[in-house]
């Protein structure tokens, strides 16, 4: 079972969260976990899913225009 790093879920990159969610699904699907571990992983998965949905709800992008110094 993967250990969650010490950083909070909001600090983890979207890509990493999505990968974690997919790996939880695979673990559960393969049926290698006992039922208790499976349920615990499922709970982790729902937390990740809600964080991802929170991020999806963000609408705006930020544009930073770069004005390089002319040497």
């Amino acid at each position, binding site marked *: 079972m993967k250990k969650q790093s010490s950083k909070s879920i909001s600090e983890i*990159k*979207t890509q990493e969260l999505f990968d974690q969610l997919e790996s939880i699904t695979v673990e559960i699907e393969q049926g290698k976990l006992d039922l208790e571990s*499976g349920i615990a992983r499922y709970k982790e998965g729902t937390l990740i899913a809600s964080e991802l949905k929170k991020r*999806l709800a*963000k609408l705006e992008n930020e*544009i*930073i225009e*770069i004005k390089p110094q002319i040497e």
Partner: protein
Amino acid sequence: METENILGVSEFNELINAHLGLLGEVVVQGEISEIKVSQNKWIFGSIKDESAALEIFGMIYQLGNISQFEAGMVVKIYGTPRLYEKTGKFSIFINRIMPVGEGSLRIAFEKLRDQLTKEGLFEISRKRPIPQFPSTIGLITAEDSQAYQDFIKILSKRMGGIKIYFYPVSVQGKESPNSINEGIQYLNNYFPTLDLIVLTRGGGSLEDLIGFNNEAVVRQIFGSKIPIVSAIGHEGDWSLTDLVADLRASTPSNAAELIVPDRNMIDEIINSIVQKSKQNLMYQIQTKNNQAELMIEKLNSNIRLLIHEMKQLIAQFGDLSSRISEKIVQLKDRGLSLIRILSNLNPQTILQRGFSITTTDDGKIIKSINELKNQDIMKTTLKDGKISSIVKAIHK
């Protein structure tokens, strides 16, 4: 009388060169008559039009690879006119040389493409994956261009929360190769953690796209540490930056669609992933439940079987027990009859029935009259006592 101003050849050539220098950089267009490289250092050749010819001269270190140029190609030469003082030959010193017209540009494009292909710059195997969820994107395109607007507009309809670092460049004309190069270099140097860079502009002629078919730009993209997405022109029209980039998009809008996922699609994927996990768990729970029920049923049937066997045993034991009881009764009857027989044989019983036992005085049972004689004392035992008597007569 006026004094003649006589100049030495060297002085004259110097004077001419000084005058020519005042012209600064000029641009001359013509068809290449000849172009060759000497000792891998110098470029010699000439260009012409219908009625005139002009010698050209350049340095490889300054111009780089010129293999895409060949005789017959129309070119624009940015250079300074000069007179080679030693020989008095007039030529234009090339600062920059560019193909002109679709035909020449096409030949130059194809030659450069073939050369870079041979070098392996477009190999699929060296292309890096583009992150599925980029959070920081470098954008290199022209300010206020249609490409910029299309890209930003489509991006805003996809997943949000992305930081776009926009580096405005010139995407057309002779400044564009340098401008694009600087942009790629700048983002690599100052924003090395960007998830990717998008280099984009709308479609155009080969002349318009000169910056995107430029060898230096292609090599800059090849060397970029950050993955690059190239989105130039329209469908079917591939530039060299498209070929060298890690990912090619057909238009600026297509680039936005390819690099940032659609929020509704991701939402659906998340829902289906969670739902799938839930179904799997429910299935596992149901399977365990079924197994438990099967085990309980098996246990129940085992218990029922055990009870049945016990009942059978008890029934068998009952039979045995009644047979034993019968036997006991039989044995008891037999015992009683034996006791009765034995009892009948007991002398005491015989005496009880009225018989008596006669013995000599010393207690020997008299079975015959021959064992007695007159005056002998004999003893008779009856059921309730003994009699001593004397024999008076013996009758045979």
